[in-house]
């Protein structure tokens, strides 16, 4: 694949996007996007994470030329989406949230038509379709009508359709919503593989925390039409006040002593205890554990177990969006 138009410009750039929708008579317009800004480097899987209605799909629709922002600017591969929609369309693949295959066409026919529409010759489209059917394990079902496909198969076909013309940017709008865990795991494996092999820039939206954690190299948490925080999944988690350390003492009567010991260790915060369990936060859990064990041992407290938990994206969401992800979703 060739390099982006100029090395300095990101593959995807959205600047201060605002998008409102009418909300029915009398009501104020719904502000789906409220100054959203993102920048995605070429060749990266970038995740937009947020609950339904956060503005993820609106962002995808604007960047993929489907809808227009009320204000703000958006560029794909350095091309302005509002001014040169046609040029953008030839370089992108869109896997919309809804199933996007024609139910009355076979998997193969869907792929060939999508390729031809993107300017592939019939022969080239057929060859590419065969390749993708094979890659997505749809070979056996290739000539069955898409309406007979299971949810997981249909979703794989949708992604394959989006890949027909080897787009340089792929939009995956909630690729695994509604899939069972097994189909989701399979889809994750495929997305991970194709991002590495095709060297595409992928913009992924999801409301699954594990999905963003698993697939995205960088992610932005979106809430109420704005990016609340952006970074790599581990950076975001590092920005929380460290890891959680759980210490279980063998004898609940020694918990008070243990707590006093822990509070004296440098870098340990927020020590709480209940029964035989003590909880504390530390900057780097793995580094803190030896110190904790040594101090407790020196004080003669017998330890049953020590566990270190990395903060989850849910914790990150809670911190930056001000509410629990589960509640927002």
């Amino acid at each position, binding site marked *: 694949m060739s390099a982006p138009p100029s090395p300095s410009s990101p593959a995807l750039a959205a600047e201060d996007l605002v998008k409102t929708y009418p909300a029915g008579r009398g009501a104020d317009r719904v502000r789906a996007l409220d100054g959203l800004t993102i920048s995605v480097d070429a060749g990266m899987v970038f995740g937009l994470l947020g609950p339904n209605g956060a503005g993820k799909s609106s962002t995808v*629709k604007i960047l993929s030329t489907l809808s227009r922002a009320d204000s703000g600017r958006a560029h794909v591969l350095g091309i302005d989406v509002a001014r040169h929609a046609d*040029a953008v*369309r030839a370089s992108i693949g869109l896997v919309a949230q809804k199933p996007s295959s024609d139910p009355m066409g076979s998997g193969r026919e869907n792929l060939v038509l999508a390729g031809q529409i993107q300017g592939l010759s019939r022969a080239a489209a057929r060859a590419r379709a065969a390749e993708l059917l094979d890659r997505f394990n749809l070979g056996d079902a290739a000539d069955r009508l898409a309406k007979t496909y299971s949810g997981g198969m249909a979703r794989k076909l949708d992604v394959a359709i*989006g890949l027909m013309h080897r787009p340089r940017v792929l939009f995956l709008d909630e690729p695994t919503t509604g899939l069972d865990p097994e189909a989701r795991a399979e889809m994750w494996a495929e997305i991970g593989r194709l991002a590495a092999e095709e060297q595409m820039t992928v913009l992924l939206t999801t409301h699954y925390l594990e999905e963003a954690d698993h697939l995205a190299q960088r992610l932005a948490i979106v809430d109420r039409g704005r990016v609340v925080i952006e970074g790599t999944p581990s950076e975001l988690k590092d920005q929380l006040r460290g890891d959680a350390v759980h210490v279980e003492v063998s004898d609940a009567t020694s918990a008070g002593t243990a707590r006093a010991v822990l509070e004296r260790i440098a870098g340990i915060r927020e020590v709480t205890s209940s029964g035989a369990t003590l909880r504390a936060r530390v900057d780097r859990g793995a580094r803190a554990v030896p110190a904790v064990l040594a101090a407790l041992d020196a004080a003669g407290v017998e330890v049953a177990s020590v566990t270190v938990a990395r903060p989850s994206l849910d914790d990150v969401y809670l911190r930056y969006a001000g509410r629990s992800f589960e509640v927002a979703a």
Partner: protein
Amino acid sequence: MSAPTTATLTPPGTPDGRTRVPQGVKVERLVLHSAYLTARSVRTLFRQPAYMAITLVQPIIWLLLFGNLFKSVVDIPGFTARSGNYLEFLTPGVVIMTALFSSGWAGTVYIEDMDRGVMDRLLASPVRRGAIVVGTLAYQAITTVVQTLIIFGIAYTAGARFPGGASGVAVTVAASVLISVIIASLSDAIALLVRQQEALIGISQFIVLPLQFLSSSIIDTRVSPAWVRHVARYNPVDWASTAAREALSSGTDWGVVLPRLGFLLALACVMAWLATRAFRTYQRSI
């Protein structure tokens, strides 16, 4: 057609080993994309044999049903079926009526595509909006030509004769195709504006039925109330029925036929353009 820009900027760095249809030629792209989408609709029809059978059998039933039901209308004073045979009067009328009724459903394909992600995918691809419209119109036109020829076959078998001959049949086919294009464009535009199957069908029925009955397609408007005659003069369904019937008669007055075909053609172009424009409204809503 409705694309806001004539972008000369080509996507940079087209990957190697990729056979590309020359995309600079917009007309060529429009034709190709229309053909792909038309082929998709025809293929879908062939995969629904029951629906296809109804599409083909329906006009036959109308022809034979109305033919018997209204057999004696020719006896009403003032009714001018030239040969005195109602079936011969009715045949072009049923042709136009069939085109009218089937094309009212054209927009349902859009609704299905919108309910799935197919429409969004097409709109985010290099397909021209015009091609998405032409795809449905060409499909309707093909269906209409087949239906028209079947109706002529049945009418001929039932004893109807058309002194206008081949040119009469050609005018009838042209008129029915133009009506199809006009109504299918309208149906497409409504689909893009209301985006809901029930609303589309309701509005479509509300428009199609009066167009049908305020025309000379099954009855000579000379026996209708005067206001119907006046309204019918502005009704494209009446233009089409009158032009087809005149062209099928002996001693065709081309002064009646040609202006009506001209109006139909002009209206068809306007309606197809409006349907293409309706994509803008649709895209504003998503």
